[in-house]
Each structure stands twice: as C-alpha cells, then as structure tokens.
C-alpha cells in the first residue's frame, strides 16, 4: 500500500515533466506540421544550461532556469526562421532538418561537457517532505511539479482566453482558412515554436537536478513524447496533458514491478494499440478527409 501511494505520487510528478515537453511537440506539429525530432535535444540543452551555468559556475538556480528557457527558445526561433519556414511545403523536409539539428546539438553538448560519464547536478532545494510518516517527496520534485502545473495553466489561459491564443488554434485547425482571415502564419509559427521550445527548456531545467545529464538523454525524451502525443491524440493539447499523466502513472507502476525496459516496451505496445483502436487518441477529434 505504501509503495502504491508513493508510486502514484512519483507518477504524477513525472507526468508533469512529460506534459511539458509533449505539449511543446504537439504545438509545433499542430501549427507548423513538422515532427520536431530535435525536441528531445531541446530538453537536453535546457539541462546542460543548468549543469554549465549553475553547477559549474555557481550561478543561482532560479535565474539559470530562466536562462535555460531563453537559450532553448532562441534555438527554436532560429530553427523556425532558417529551417522550417523554407521547407514549409515539403512535409519530410522539416523532419529531416530537425534530425540535422539533433546531430549538431548532440555534438555541441559533447564538446562542451566532454564524453565522460553522465553529469549530476546537486538539487538546489534540500530536504524531503514526509507525509503520514511513509510518503517521502523531495522538495525539489515538489518544486518541479508546482512549476509544471503553473506553466501548463498559463498556457491554457493563453490558448483559450487571448486573441493570440485563438489565432494559434485557428492556424492549427486549418492553415489556409486562418491565413484568409488575416492571421499572419509566420508570426503564429514563431509563437508556437517559441512557446514549445520554452516549455522544453523549462522541462530540461527542472529535470536537470533529478536525472543523469548526457548528450544522448534526448532519445528517451522523444520516445516518451511520441507515446504521449499519440495516446493523447495528435494535435490535442489537453489530450497530451491527460495522456502524459496516464502514461507517467503507467510507466512508474510497470517500472516498479517489472523493470524499466519492460515499461518502455509496454508503453510502445500501448501506443500501437491506441493507434489501432482509436487513431484519433483519447481527446482527438475525428477528421474526415
């Protein structure tokens, strides 16, 4: 019983992180039609920023977190301007360009941090919250959960309550129709990838003190993001959030009882099953051709 409750809490916290980067992937795909394979590497860059500036040079954690967001957002904006915009009419072009970015970012990380063992960042928040004498939550994880929820709520407010958010959703629904209504597609694309990359950077910054940091950490991130995106329904942001929480709980439980590799296999099989039974995902809308 204690293990179950502890696993539920760990799963929820994990779900917050999953949601942050999966939502970014969904936004970029929805608005620009590009599968951003480099999304995991954006998370990696966020984590590396924390490691380099905070752990190596002793800069305080919170300003470094902001810096990580800005750096990753900058990379995202550059990608949109110089790669995704010229290849907008070529569905595979954007994907291949993002793979090129993936290679470049991995090499940059190796050059900066070396190819040695994975790096660890000591948690800036010490101590553990103990509830009911058996549930233990490190404050660092609690902080991560709080920030993720806050960021997702802000995003929800932006998308549903502001004109710019409406415009963004309009472009995701139908690009031509949105353009005919006078919405500037280039500006909206900038906003979508800016927000998506910023969330990835935030996720990387929050996860940095909790995981092993290495140039290849993006691989697991992108697999997770794909599973969450598909289960939630491609193009559905709320679906991605629910799917992130469901998948995180699922993954945590299977990991506890059967091990990490089996958990990932089960996740992938789950994803294929969702694709077969309900290709539009749990929150997706059925689109007729």
């Amino acid at each position: 019983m204690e293990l179950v409750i502890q696993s539920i809490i760990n799963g929820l916290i994990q779900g917050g992180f999953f949601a942050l980067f999966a939502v970014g992937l969904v936004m970029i795909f929805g608005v620009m039609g590009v599968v951003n394979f480099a999304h995991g590497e954006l998370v990696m860059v966020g984590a590396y920023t924390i490691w380099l500036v905070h752990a190596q040079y002793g800069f305080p954690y919170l300003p470094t977190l902001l810096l990580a967001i800005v750096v990753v957002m900058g990379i995202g904006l550059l990608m949109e301007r110089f790669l995704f915009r010229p290849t907008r009419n070529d569905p595979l072009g954007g994907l291949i360009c993002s793979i090129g970015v993936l290679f470049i970012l991995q090499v940059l990380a190796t050059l900066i941090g070396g190819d040695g063992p994975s790096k660890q960042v000591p948690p800036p928040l010490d101590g553990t919250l103990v509830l009911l004498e058996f549930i233990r939550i490190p404050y660092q994880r609690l902080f991560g959960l709080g920030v993720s929820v806050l960021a997702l709520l802000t995003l929800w407010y932006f998308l549903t309550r502001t004109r710019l958010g409406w415009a963004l959703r309009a472009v995701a629904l139908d690009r031509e129709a949105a353009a005919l209504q006078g919405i500037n597609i280039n500006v909206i694309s900038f906003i979508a990838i800016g927000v998506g990359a910023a969330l990835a950077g935030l996720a990387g910054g929050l996860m940095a003190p909790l995981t092993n940091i290495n140039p290849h950490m993006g691989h697991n991130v992108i697999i997770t993001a794909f599973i969450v995106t598909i289960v939630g329904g491609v193009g559905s942001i709320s679906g991605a959030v629910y799917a992130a929480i469901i998948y995180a709980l699922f993954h945590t439980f299977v990991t506890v009882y059967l091990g990490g590799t089996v958990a990932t296999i089960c996740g992938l099989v789950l994803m294929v099953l969702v694709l077969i039974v309900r290709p539009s995902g749990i929150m997706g809308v059925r689109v007729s051709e």
Partner: protein
Amino acid sequence: MNSKPARIVLSLLLLVGLLLLPHFLQFHHQDLLIFLTINVLVVASYRIVTLTGEWSLIHAVMMGVGGYTAALVFKQFELGMWFTLPLAGIVAAAIAALLCFPLFRMTQFYFLIGSFAAGEAIRLCWIRFVQPFGGTGGLSGVEPPLIGDIDFLEAVPYYYLTLAVVGLCLFILYRIENSRIGLILHSVHWKAPLAESVGVDTWRYRALAFIIGSFFVGVAGGLKVHYLGTITPNQFGVGFMVFILIWVIVGGYNRFYGPIIGVVVLTLFDESIRSLEEIRPAIYGAVLIISILFLPQGLESIVGRVKRLFARKPAGGTPSGDR
C-alpha cells in the same frame, strides 16, 4: 546518349570496375566496401516501401530481424549461409506481414510513428530477453561460409559474394519496380482514390511493398551478420534508421538509382572526414540541412541536369522523374 549499346558498355565498365576495386584498397577500406555494398541493398529495398508514399521507421529493425534469424539458425542448427540468407529474408517478410495488420490501418504521420513504435518494441525485446537473443551484448560466433578452398573470412572473397547477392537482389527489385506491380505502387502513392476507383486494393499493395522491402532488407541483415560475426540490438537502433533516411533523401527518391547515389556519396564523404572524430555527426547534420534547403530533389537531380546539358534539344516539359 541513351542508346542501347552505350548502356551495355557502361554497365560492363561499371561491373569490371566493381570487380577490380577491392584489389586497389587497403584492408580497412575493403571492410568499408562490403558494408557499403550491403547498405546499397538496404536503401534499394527501402525504396520499394517508400514507393507507395509511406515512410516507415522500422526498416532498420527489419534488417535486425534478418540478422538475428541468420545468427540463431546458424548457431542452433549449424546450417550454412545458403539456408540462413533466404531464411533471414523470409522471417523478416513474415514478421512484416504480421505487422501489416496493425500498421496499415494508419497512414502518413501515424504510420511513421506507429512503425517507429513497433520497431522499438521489437528491438527492446532483443535487449530484454537474454535467452535466446543475448541481451545488449547480442550474439557472436557467426561464421561466414566455406566453399571448397575459398575462405570467405577474407575480405575480398566475401566482397564478391556480397556483390553477387546484392546484385541479384537489385536486379529483382528493379524488375519489380518496372513491372505491373511497380506501376500500381506508384499509382497508390500519387493517385490513391483513382487507383481505388479502378479496383486496386491500396491496402494490399501497401502491405505487399512493405513485405517485399522487408524481405530484401532481411537478406541484407543476414549478409551483415555473417561478415561481422556478431550482432547487437544497438546496430539497428534509431541511429541507423536515421542514416537510411538521410541516404535516401539526400540521394533523392524519385528514381531507382537516387538512394544508391546517396549511400555511395555520403559514405565516401563520411570516410573523408574520419579524422574529425567526434564532431563528425555535426558536419553530417549540417550537410543534411544544406542539401534539404538547396537540393530538395536530391543528388540525383544533378545527374538529370548534366544529362540535359548534353542533350541536343533543349529540355521541355517537367524535369521531375515521377512516373
């Protein structure tokens, strides 16, 4: 320019060149030549899958299925390469046939992700189930065949063997593409509703292309494991799949020889920057981006341009080679 005798002379020259090539190379480069020849089969078989317009991300894993089949059959039953190679192809095709049922319920983006998930699940099974797949360390001790006195452990004889098998497979693939089936596959890609309206079962042809491609890449996997002697799950991960995609796209996918040009040119390029060690992937990435931005039709479009330059009458009509 395209007269029949000229073509025959050109093919003969190419054949002689390929046969003589290993004798001018050092051992390390002979090694590379064998892998390059195998990779030519990998991209050519991938082309059959992409003819219907579906880009799968499971091709690398299918090569692994062939490789693991060859390795297991060789180790369990001590059957020679003459049995393991066709068997590698058949098992890969059979698994592909099973996967058709879930995978081809999807198209395009969903198919891309679905095939990626299915492949990754198979690959993780090789890691998880140490018996019989050997876990992360994989399997080793797979030997090349021995015919009479010819020891295929040597690079040069194995190269000729590979060349023969790959040549045969390429010939079959070329004939398939230019047959009635190949034309239907093209029609499924470009005009699926029209093809359906004249009675083509698009699902069946998509599946057929996938199974044929998987068969030949399975054979390629068998060839690779018999030369290397070892097989590990990580040889067939996302990394290798990405390389297949890069070769095909940089080479160009509108003609049969596009992907082959891609794999040959990029392998030579990769070898020429070997001294740069760890920043090599970044240069690769940069080349990839540049070629997508400035050469969206792939390297094969250069061939087309040169041809038009030499042609007597000015080129008219559409330059693209879509059929």
